[in-house]
């Protein structure tokens, strides 16, 4: 009796998982289908001229940004979670602020301020009566410049995921390691850090994927990477085929990264025991050490948040966009609705998929979750074309069927609707929520699942009664990341949105693409303001530890007493 029901249920799970994965897979297949097509000599031309440079720059950029965000993110997360120093309670949430700044805006702000004709160099020249060849100044529009800009913009991904892991780490484990004679540093490197590895990896890999697919900021910095090459190949050489083929290089790089990490940690497990934050004691840093810690945490906030916000506020105050002021409420509302709906759905799908993978880790389901994590590495413009192609393919087919049967057709009803836009966001950002949630699940001991099963609970009950309460913090973290990402997203929004429907990011694009950067600052400030609210709210909730609820502790307690 139970058996057919169970197999029906697992068949349903499989179908649902495949459906979710197809949100990413179908657009990817659209891109993959370009593989066999001729690109009209574009490839040979690229190989002979610019491709080597694209590849080198992409590699250095990804390694540079990946490494520095890891140092910044993990270091800051450890400092604010484990130590007490000047302003540490402010840094706890302020470290997330750069997340609200779209990277292209940060790059614009940095290049505008630090370029030769910008205010900093101009005042230096006036002050010391220098001319062009009399001094050296770091060039923001360069590969190192791009690494710095993207690092201070993206480290919050690592900070957020790592901090969640540190907070959930058992204080017993740590105290145990201290009892065994490890100092705070050794305890950090030998216990806390290795235990947080899946979370650190997911943070860094999100950063690397974002870096690989980043166009706007890198382009402002005058660095040619695969992503800018893809865009250029498509727009200038008119060859979407060659652009798609270049995108596959990026996809290959990400696939390699993921495979490498999962192979290297195959036999490792990362469960955490008691996650009560109350039990953990923080180390009080001495004044000089505290000062260094405050500098370490403060400088990325200064560069990644305070600098651009001050600049945009100044520009808005002086030469703002009057029309944006009128449109702000409508644009803001559109952005807010899109971000909320898309992020909720992304978290829901991510949760379902990672839960299915945990309770029924069959090959097809594992594959489905792998594929779903790939959308983030492909430049937004290309993935938007993949989604558009897939939707129109489907709609054209449907129309043909209607025409042949009824000699009437409904026309397009899905493309150019808000729903299509929401689907496109799933394709692009599912990997974010999926990655964060999966990393969260690795920290839950499978014993909890076994106990629940012994008590006769179904997979759904385990999810809602056991995993959900423990994962609340993780889910909010995933929601927030996608929310802010959708707020900043541009290429898919531009090409898939309905008639007469604009968002804040679209407004920024319209002005910035026309070099009206002063006016663009008004909508930029609005994006930042909208993004900041959930960022601050969530990080405060996280640090107060309000998100851990009683069911988990009870389960824990029972297990500990057994």
């Amino acid at each position: 009796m139970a058996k057919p029901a169970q197999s029906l249920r697992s068949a349903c799970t499989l179908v649902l998982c495949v459906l979710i994965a197809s949100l990413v897979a179908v657009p990817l297949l659209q891109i993959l289908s370009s593989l066999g097509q001729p690109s009209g000599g574009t490839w040979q031309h690229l190989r002979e001229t610019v491709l080597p440079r694209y590849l080198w720059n992409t590699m250095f950029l990804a390694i540079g940004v990946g490494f520095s965000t890891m140092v910044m993110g993990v270091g800051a997360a450890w400092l604010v979670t484990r130590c007490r120093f000047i302003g540490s309670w402010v840094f706890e949430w302020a470290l997330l602020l750069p997340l609200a700044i779209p990277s292209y805006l940060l790059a614009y702000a940095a290049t505008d301020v630090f370029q030769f004709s910008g205010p900093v160099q101009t005042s230096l020249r006036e002050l010391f009566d220098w001319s062009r060849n009399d001094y050296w100044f770091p060039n923001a529009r360069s590969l190192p410049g791009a690494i710095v800009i993207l690092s201070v913009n993206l480290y919050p991904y690592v900070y957020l995921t790592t901090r969640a892991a540190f907070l959930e780490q058992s204080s017993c484990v740590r105290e145990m390691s201290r009892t065994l004679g490890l100092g705070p540093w050794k305890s950090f490197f030998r216990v806390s850090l290795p235990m947080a590895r899946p979370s650190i990896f997911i943070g860094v890999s999100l950063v690397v994927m974002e870096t690989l697919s980043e166009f706007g900021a890198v382009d402002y910095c005058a660095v040619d990477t695969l992503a800018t090459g893809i865009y250029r190949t498509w727009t200038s050489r008119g060859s979407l085929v060659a652009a798609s083929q270049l995108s596959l290089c990026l996809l290959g790089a990400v696939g390699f990264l993921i495979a490498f990490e999962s192979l290297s940690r195959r036999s490792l497990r990362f469960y955490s025991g008691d996650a009560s934050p109350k039990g953990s004691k923080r180390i009080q840093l001495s004044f000089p050490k505290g000062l260094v810690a405050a500098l370490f945490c403060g400088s990325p906030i200064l560069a990644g948040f305070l600098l651009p916000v001050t600049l945009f506020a100044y520009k808005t105050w002086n030469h703002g966009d009057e029309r944006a002021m009128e449109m702000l409420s409508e644009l803001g509302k559109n952005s807010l609705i899109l971000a909320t709906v898309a992020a909720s759905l992304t978290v829901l799908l991510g949760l379902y998929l990672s839960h299915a993978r945990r309770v029924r880790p069959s090959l097809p389901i594992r594959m489905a979750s792998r594929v779903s994590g790939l959308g983030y590495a492909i430049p937004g413009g290309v993935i938007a074309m993949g989604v558009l192609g897939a939707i129109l393919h489907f709609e054209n087919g449907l129309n043909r069927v209607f025409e042949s049967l009824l000699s009437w057709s409904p026309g397009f009803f899905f493309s150019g609707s808000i729903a299509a836009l929401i689907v496109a966001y799933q394709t692009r950002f599912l990997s974010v929520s999926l990655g964060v949630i999966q990393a969260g699940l690795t920290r839950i001991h499978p014993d909890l699942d076994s106990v629940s099963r012994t008590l006769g609970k179904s997979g759904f009950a385990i999810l809602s009664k056991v995993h959900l309460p423990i994962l609340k913090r993780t889910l909010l973290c995933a929601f927030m990341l996608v929310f802010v990402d959708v707020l900043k997203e541009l290429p898919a929004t531009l090409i898939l949105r309905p008639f007469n429907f604009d968002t804040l990011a679209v407004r920024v694009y319209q002005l910035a693409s026309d070099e009206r950067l002063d006016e663009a600052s008004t909508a930029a400030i609005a994006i930042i303001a909208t993004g900041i609210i959930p960022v601050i709210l969530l990080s405060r909730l996280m640090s107060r530890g309000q998100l851990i609820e009683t069911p988990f502790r009870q389960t824990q307690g029972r297990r500990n007493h057994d």
Partner: protein
Amino acid sequence: MLISNFSSLKLVATLALFAAFGTAFAHGQEVVNVYSARHYDTDDSIYEEFTSKTGIKVNLISGGSDALIERLQREGKRSPADIFVTVDAGRLFQAEEKGIFQPIESSFLKQQIPANLRHPDGLWFGLTKRARIILRSKDRTKEGDIQNYEDLADPKWKGKVLIRSSTNVYNQSLVGSIIEAKGKSGAEAWCKGVVANMARPPQGGDRDQIKGVAAGEGDIAVANSYYYARMLSGTDEEREAASKVEVVFPNQENRGTHVNLSGIGVVKSAPNKANAIKFIEFLASDWAQGLFAKGNNEYPIAPSAETIPVLRGFGEFTEDKVNAAKFGKNNTEAIRMMDRAGWR
């Protein structure tokens, strides 16, 4: 969990239905559906005027030119679009080549728009034009030092030339026009000469090049006319930078200054073709042309429309009369040439 699952499903369904009905409702009113790669605020006010004069509602999606072309192509014969607006001749050529436009026969448009600024068969029509001018430093150069685009490749300007990336479509069209004038090998040599003269690797936008000359990073810059015109009425810093440079219209003694345009055409499958033609004719009228040009400091296409004072202040100039379709066609060759020359 189940509830939130269900409610988000419901939300998606409602949104889809709304979108479906949204298009259905639109059938009640006369509309023209516009995909536009031009996004200036004045365009919107001109569209509003069109609606109040004709009762035809303008539905607008603005976006990147290439993405819109791709969308039109994939939508095929069921596309809701009536009108495609884009900037740059190369883009118009691409759209034309991909079969997006249909020919329009309109004696009014023929009369308003000079022949070199519209497609010979009426596939597209110019809306506004902009000149790619040279800006020279008032302090460090004198009148007559630079007169032609060809001079940008002259070794005497080594380390002095500021020009943006070859990814920029205006540079591609400029090189396209040079291919038309000098042939492939002449143009390739020109590209290499320009690269050798660059003051720094190409970076920033057109305004950044002008600011670079003002700050002493180089002596001559290449930029579109409207960027400079806009700086003249911009912030204090921009006005100060603009006051340090002088406009040079290149090639006045020979073929004329390279002129690019923004253009418009009726989509092949246009469901509201009659409205679309009315729309284009309205935009080509003297009134709309004047406003178009004013809003973005561009030159009107219609010779009878008024040029704004700031542009008149630059003086009259001779245009390169080569049809935009020709240098548009050279786009791919131009880009490969710049890649080979190391023009990033």
